[in-house]
């Protein structure tokens, strides 16, 4: 095999542990941190899908996915790659959205003949790197870590195109704004019903509700009477925004309920938690009776338990891979056909 590809999905598990360690809830935290996983949709899009599409364009037939803890899975996968005798390995840590031409990265890597090439933008590493076989073998055999060998052998690939870190609530919201205004290639997944307003299928908006563009409302979301969505708002799929609530310059992640009469401004809401971008604080909306997680629909639950080794699926089904499943425990990474 000429080139292998490996995608690590960070986050998720960390939040579970944090929740258990905080009997009084996360509201006690003043430190901003990602409450959401990199698999959460952005304007209905799955960032993993966009990376997979870029990998597919390189002619790679399949890639390996690993979640959460990372190190063990990565080490195991790297050892596997080394045994298979691959020539090069593309490792993508799913923490950024970057409109990167991976073919150009590959060309750069081959020309420089460095064992490791690491993609950077002006703000630093993007979590995308290419490793040559000796580096792969060394990393796998030594059970060192998910990171490639030493800094000295890394060659930086300077990326000047569009990139945002999706695990930063601030940059994530910037990406939402850019997607809504056409400043990046990502487009809202839905139907454009008027200028800069997109809705997914099955959306219900009360006649007295206001939708101010640029705005995106994800599939099966309900916006009740007197609510205001926008500008620069993204309410993802299966949410309920109750009467009179305003969502402005904010993102509401899937399966979130927002109580009546609230003002959500400059924030990111994930179920019962709100990360405020201005005050840099996380508030527990559930404890305050202001919001919470809506139980997933039966159909979605089924899709979440579907066979994780299925070929790349489209749309919402893309979120069906349960990387933390028991089967993943036995084999901490899984292969996905592209």
């Amino acid at each position, binding site marked *: 095999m000429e080139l292998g590809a490996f995608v690590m999905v960070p986050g998720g598990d960390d939040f579970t542990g944090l929740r258990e360690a905080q009997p*009084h809830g996360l509201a*006690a*935290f003043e430190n901003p941190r990602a409450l959401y996983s990199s698999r959460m949709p952005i304007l209905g899009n799955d960032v993993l899908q966009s990376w997979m599409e870029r990998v597919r364009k390189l002619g790679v037939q399949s890639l390996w996915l690993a979640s959460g803890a990372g190190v063990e899975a990565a080490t195991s996968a790297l050892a596997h790659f080394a045994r298979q005798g691959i020539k090069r390995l593309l490792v993508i840590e799913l923490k950024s959205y970057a409109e990167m031409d991976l073919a150009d990265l590959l060309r750069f890597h081959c020309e420089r003949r460095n064992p490791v090439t690491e993609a950077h933008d002006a703000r630093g590493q993007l979590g995308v790197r290419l490793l040559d076989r000796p580096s792969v073998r060394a990393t796998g055999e030594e059970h060192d870590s998910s990171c490639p060998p030493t800094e000295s052998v890394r060659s930086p690939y300077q990326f000047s195109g569009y990139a945002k870190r999706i695990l930063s609530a601030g940059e994530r919201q910037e990406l939402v704004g850019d997607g809504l205004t056409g400043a990046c290639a990502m487009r809202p997944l839905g139907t454009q019903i008027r200028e800069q307003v997109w809705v997914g299928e099955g959306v219900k908006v009360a006649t007295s509700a206001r939708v101010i563009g640029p705005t995106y409302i994800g599939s099966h979301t309900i916006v009740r009477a007197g609510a205001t969505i926008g500008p620069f708002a993204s309410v993802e799929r299966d949410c309920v925004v109750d009467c009179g609530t305003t969502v402005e310059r904010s993102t509401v992640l899937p399966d979130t309920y927002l109580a009546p009469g609230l*003002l959500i401004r400059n*924030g990111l809401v994930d179920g019962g938690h709100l990360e405020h971008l*201005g005050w*840099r*604080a996380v508030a527990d909306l559930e*404890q*305050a009776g202001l919001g919470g997680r809506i139980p997933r629909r039966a159909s979605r639950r089924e899709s979440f338990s579907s066979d994780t080794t299925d070929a790349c699926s489209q749309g919402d089904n893309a979120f069906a891979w349960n990387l933390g499943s028991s089967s993943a425990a036995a084999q901490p990474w899984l292969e996905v056909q592209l």
Partner: protein
Amino acid sequence: MKSASMKGSIIRNGATNGAASILPFPSASSSGSCRAQRNDLLNALRVSESPVIVDLSDRRTLRVEDIDLLLECLALVAGRDTQVVFVAGSNTNRVLLEVTRISSLAPVFNSMKEVFAHPQRAAERDAEDPSKDHQGASQSQTVWSA
């Protein structure tokens, strides 16, 4: 200036030289004490003619019943000359006060020190951009003065 030493007292506002009452927001762990504190707060608001500062500094976060009580406080002084000011004590509380729109009904400050230092300046600064300075107040329309 420690807010704890001033709770339940009548003090003078350094900025305006007016009198104001400082009332602690219920924070007792036992339900009996909490109920008593709640009654004290509501009774004080009912009779007070001077501005009242409700101090939430001892609360790390707010629950459903706390939000209800804050709204009850506002309802008690509505239509009267008595002015209510909230001291959030934490950014988390500030976020909840903004989300519930309480901060659009009454001035909110981060600490007692801010209330008495430069309330007007803090309010103006905050209105510009809360992300630039987390020490300001979240309400600019009504500048509190005792």
